């Protein structure tokens, strides 16, 4: 029996027993589709998060007060009380040739009011460098003015939502708002960009760093964002920052410098692990589908005992019978896997259309692995029924014993 004939005969059986075939295809299809969809979700989340971080620029360094040996993790919450990071520390960092921009950040929350309207908002104190470092855009007006950061100019930039809430459709540029107990003139409105790495850029007010320090009566900085001149300059910039701060902090290494790529790499690892985990969970359904194929094929063998007996009487070797049944299992697995991939991609298309932000992409390795696992599962679980068929005694099979 040639391979072509085995394939044709097995295809005939697959098409001949439609209910059985549809059930098996359904099980295998759901298994493969779930692997494709879940890995696409994991991969989409990974791309989204790393993309968000990368959108900040790949040569960014974040300086936090307090020492931590781990890069990419959260800053130390407890432990030693480090020396505060100050505005002078930030300005000193500008001395490094490897550094392009320094944006000191003071953070707090205060009530912002305009006439009778008031809103509790996050206040960011920084310099004009913040706009470029965070890749923010203006919708109108201008950003914080350049000049001596130690000078607490009474100007502010509003997030789009703050502007909307306080001013409605009224123009806000040039108006005075009250933040805490001080008055600030609105000089610009940020463009509407949604959330960006834990910061809702629509619901903030940005003021000069010295003004924020005065407002919160604190001269320590929340963190300092430093942009290196290039990706190659990052190690040099990090070394310079550590040296400058050590000199200023009486020889103490009491800051943590996190590089952007370390953060990205960490998230990348987390989401890759997550994707692998969901792929593993989804693979269980492939195993279940394999068991279903075995069950269906076992039933097929017992239903088709007399057919097997006939094939043997007509001169089919045990090997030929084995190949026919294995071919059936393979066809069911392959077609099921193909259907699963098609369903998976269709579902991804729908989700992608509904939530374009996620940009779901099924990783090729996951699709290949799902199809491979489906095929191997079908074959492995197809072996037992196929061997049973091949071993049938022709006389017993023909007489239905």
């Amino acid at each position, binding site marked *: *029996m*040639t391979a072509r*004939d085995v394939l044709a*005969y097995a295809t*005939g*059986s697959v098409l*001949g*027993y439609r209910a059985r075939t549809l059930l098996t295809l359904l099980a295998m299809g759901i298994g493969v589709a779930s692997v494709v969809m879940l890995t696409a979700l994991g991969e989409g989340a990974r791309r989204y998060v790393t993309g968000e971080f990368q959108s900040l620029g790949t040569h960014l360094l974040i300086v936090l007060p307090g020492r931590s040996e781990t890069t990419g993790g959260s800053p130390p919450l407890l432990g030693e009380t480090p020396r505060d990071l100050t505005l002078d520390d930030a300005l000193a960092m500008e001395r490094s040739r490897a550094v392009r921009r320094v944006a000191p950040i003071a953070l707090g929350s205060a009530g912002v009011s305009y006439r009778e309207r008031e809103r509790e908002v996050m206040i960011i104190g920084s310099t004009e460098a913040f706009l470029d470092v965070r890749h923010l855009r203006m919708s109108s007006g201008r950003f914080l003015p350049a000049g001596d950061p130690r000078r607490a100019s009474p100007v502010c930039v509003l997030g789009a939502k703050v502007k909307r809430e306080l001013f409605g459709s009224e123009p806000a540029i040039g108006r005075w708002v009250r933040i805490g107990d001080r008055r600030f003139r609105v000089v610009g409105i940020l463009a509407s960009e949604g959330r960006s790495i834990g910061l809702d850029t629509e619901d903030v007010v940005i003021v000069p760093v010295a003004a924020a320090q005065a407002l919160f009566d604190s001269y320590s900085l929340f963190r300092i964002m430093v942009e290196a001149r290039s990706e190659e300059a990052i190690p040099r910039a990090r070394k310079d920052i550590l040296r400058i701060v050590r000199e200023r902090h009486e020889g103490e290494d009491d800051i943590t410098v996190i590089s952007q790529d370390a953060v990205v790499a960490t998230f990348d690892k987390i989401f890759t692990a997550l994707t692998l985990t969901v792929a593993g969970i989804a693979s269980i359904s492939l195993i279940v589908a394999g068991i279903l194929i075995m069950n269906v094929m076992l039933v097929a063998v017992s239903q088709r005992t*007399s*057919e097997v*007996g*006939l*094939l*043997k*009487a*007509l*001169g*089919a*070797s*045990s*090997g*030929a019978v084995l190949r026919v049944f294995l071919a059936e299992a393979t066809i069911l697995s392959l077609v099921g896997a193909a259907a699963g991939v098609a369903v998976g991609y269709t579902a991804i298309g729908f989700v992608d259309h509904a939530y374009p932000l996620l940009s779901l992409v099924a990783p090729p390795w996951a699709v290949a692995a799902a199809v491979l696992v489906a095929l191997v599962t079908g074959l492995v679980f197809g072996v037992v029924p196929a061997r049973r068929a091949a071993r049938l005694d*022709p*006389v017993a099979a*023909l007489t239905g014993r």
Partner: protein
Amino acid sequence: MIRFRHAQRFFAVGDQVVRALDDVNLDIGAGEYAAITGPSGSGKSTLLNAIGLLDRLTDGSYFLEGTDVTHLSDDDLARTRREKIGFVFQFFHLVPRLTAAQNVELPLILSDVEPNARRGRVEESLESLGLADRAHHRPNQLSGGQRQRVAIARAMVTRPQVILADEPTGNLDRASGLDVVEILEGLNRDGITLLVVTHDGELADRAARRIRMVDGKIASDTGSAEQP
């Protein structure tokens, strides 16, 4: 053509041993037409299965065309069946999902005959049995007589040397049965050795040779050249 020497076939049924073939010595020449008769359980089907290489002897020897086939491997048994033997069964044993032509084609597929040659031989077989217009019908669209004729077409399509028919008329009305018997006898006249297991005395009487089995032994063998 077919030679059995001290052939034995035992089956264990519970604690008991059933002697389905008990020291059977038998010679059947090429082109013979023999009917194997006997009561139920007498061993006639076991004898036919052993001749057809579907079953192995427990003891004794079997020569087919002078070759000892007693201890052939399963694959060699399958090959010998493909090349030399055609079967006709009481219950037709047609594959329900295949058409008449596809059922007839099966032995040719198993023998690795080229697809083009297959088509020609299938058409030829069906036509010789008056089934050309039924080629694309499935078994459930055919009458009992037509089904058995398809089964005969399938048995003869490989041009075997022996056709073994187990109760070929057992499931047919009288007219269809007679039709089937005449077809089989026609094949015998063309030189194919024909062995028919039957309960039907009238059918047995048409055979040149009648072998009667009782309790696994040959009780009588009439009409043969060697044992008149």
